[in-house]
């Protein structure tokens, strides 16, 4: 039987890094936003990691 292929550092970290960047943009962006669209975009950026956690953790089985 074939052993599963070992992932590269890029394979392992690309999603956590992307979600981390979105988190950072949301956290910092809201500091400079005065309500409205800015708050909405910052909020959506922060929702991305939370939804990813919920989807993979408790979403439909793949």
């Amino acid at each position, binding site marked *: 039987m074939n052993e599963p292929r070992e992932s590269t550092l890029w394979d392992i970290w690309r999603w956590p890094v992307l979600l*981390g960047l979105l988190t950072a943009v949301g956290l910092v962006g809201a500091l400079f936003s005065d309500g409205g669209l800015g708050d909405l975009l910052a909020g959506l950026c922060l929702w991305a990691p939370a939804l990813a956690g919920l989807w993979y953790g408790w979403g439909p089985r793949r």
Partner: protein
Amino acid sequence: MQAKTLKTWTWVHKWSSLVCTVFMLLLCLTGLPLIFHHELGHLLGTEVEAPSMPADTPRVSLDRVLEVARAQHPDRVVQFVSQSEDDPNLWFVTLTPTPAPTDDFRSVVVDARTGAVLGQPRFDQGFMWIMLKLHVDLFAGLAGKLFLGFMGLLLLAAVVSGAVLYSPFMRKLAFGSVRRERTTRLKWLDLHNLLGAVTLVWLFVVGGTGMINTWADLLIKYWQYDQLSSLLAPYQGQPTVPLAERGSVQRGLEVALQQAPGTQLSFIAFPGTAFSSPHHHTYFLRGSEAFTSRLLQPVLIDAKTTEVTAAPHLPWYLTALLVSQPLHFGDYGGRLMQIVWALLDILTIIVLGSGLYLWLAKRRGEARSTAAAGEDAPGAVTP
């Protein structure tokens, strides 16, 4: 990663997490209602609202507001006066037995247009007060704050070491893999790794800013020693200015606002209190834009003459403290952010709880293996 390096990071992750987990669970649980303190205040009836009046209704003098508040508690002194950020028609006056820092305070909310007392909410009792005190200092004052700050430092070590260990654990797994069909322990290990990875940056920022906030008292003391002491040298040796000798606080406010155009009042610290000197009313002004509204410009007004003594720029460490506050509280990006803050807090509780479970499950497994090895060992006593 070499086996020895992996072992070292595992040791750091295990012990930093184990020591801080119980306290972090407490902070996450008590932080949850604090995210919604305004909403809960409305539900519990502790939020005070100003009656609606025409927008051009004239305002009473701040001196009158103080007179009204003092009349409610003649045995107390005013420590702070602040204007509500949500509604500038409300003045919050904080009164205490002496100017020294204390938990024994009364708040009087005065209508800025009529000078009427709108309420005296007790922020020092009830469910939210218990949550706040547990979250901030465990009812142990500065020692409690510093202890929680140290727990925050351990959390940061746990987050960093967890991130280092993520790679070796995920070498043969795709992102988001949760092996539900295998053992319970593996399922929770995968969930721990997944939720740890997605909340990594948020938890690092909230943990780090929480730790910085625990140093607030010390940073303010250092600022007074470092920068204010030279500005206040001419006043050295003079007692706290008695109430009867103080000039108009309203006039002081006008002078302070002239000194820093384009700002508005955040709060006023009275003579002898922790945020002022014995000889000044210190007016803390904030900017009018999104980011500058989180920063403060102190203006020291001589309590007798109502003239400006100094308007020093805040040093970098106090600016860092002020910026770290919204990043910890999550109260700066509207309702969408508030809800996701709570959700990320709950995910963090799961990360902490699963970490604890994994440690206990591993210990149980090790104990079982040791017992089995003991039974199989030559000379082992078997029933």
